């Protein structure tokens, strides 16, 4: 599975969902992701760690745009390609809720600072 979910708590005690992302993401994967974050994880803070080489299909990219109701998303990746992909996907969305980081420490600090 390209997405692996963990329910954790930040150093400041805020619950969040950590998502490990890798591989090729299909429309079905994207649908499952959106369903979770508009359903059981609605409003929950998200830390997604995206591996190098992760690729989003065209249909998956479009479907992931329907995440406007979800909580703040911090993405961590060391890949310039993944960063470019997320930049393109979130270009016309509410930028205050999405941020891409190069390391997990900064991402966690930003996420902990976001309103619940």
């Amino acid at each position, binding site marked *: 599975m390209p997405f692996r979910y963990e329910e954790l708590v930040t150093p400041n005690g805020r619950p969040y969902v950590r998502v490990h992302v890798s591989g090729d993401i299909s429309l079905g994967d994207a649908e499952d992701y959106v369903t979770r974050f508009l359903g059981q994880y609605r409003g929950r803070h998200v830390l997604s760690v995206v591996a*190098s080489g992760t690729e989003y*299909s*065209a*249909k998956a*990219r479009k479907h992931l745009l329907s995440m406007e109701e979800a909580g703040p998303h911090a993405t961590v990746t060391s*890949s*310039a*390609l993944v960063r*470019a*992909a997320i*930049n*393109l996907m979130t270009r016309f969305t509410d930028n205050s809720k999405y941020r891409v980081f190069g390391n997990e420490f900064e991402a966690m600090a930003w996420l902990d600072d976001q309103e619940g």
Partner: protein
Amino acid sequence: MSLTISQARLHELLNVLVTAGSGDYDVRVRLEENEDALLDVELGINYLLDDLIDRRDQNEAQEEELLTRARQLARQQDELVQALSTPVIVAWPGVLALPLVGRIDDARAATITSVLLERVAAERATHVIVDLTGVAAIAGPTLPALLRMVRAIGLLGAQCLLTGIRADVAPQIVALCDAEIHVRALAQLSDALALVLAEKGALGQPHK
């Protein structure tokens, strides 16, 4: 913000754009982990090409669906036209009437013959009245085909009566008829029906 772009990446980008412009959307920009803004542009072009392929596939699927629907409608129309072009009526038990309307060409004559002979056999018809009142024109080689149909009806044991023959068609029939074809002609369909019913002794009797 300034950006230094290598000639090779720019060349690659232009090649992809020109190739896509010629209709080949399968081409893609080769991507590398370059930490610069041009990477977003390169990836954006690849995403755009993905979308173009997706739209093309959707269009092709819709086109195929429309073609299938058009073929289905054409087949239904053919069936309807065929049904309307050969309106065989059971005027009385054993008596079939076929009021023909419009132009009769070879193909239609063949259809009429086929349908009518089938009905003659199925209904065990003794008489067939073919009314030509509504026939606007009979194509040159079609009249012999209709006369062959009359002969075939005779071979099935039924008698054929022609009604509503137009003045310009009558000489053609005379010229084509040989001694083996016995065509009884009457002015109107009602005349033929009255004659047949009289022959069957059915006039003045309730229909059973």
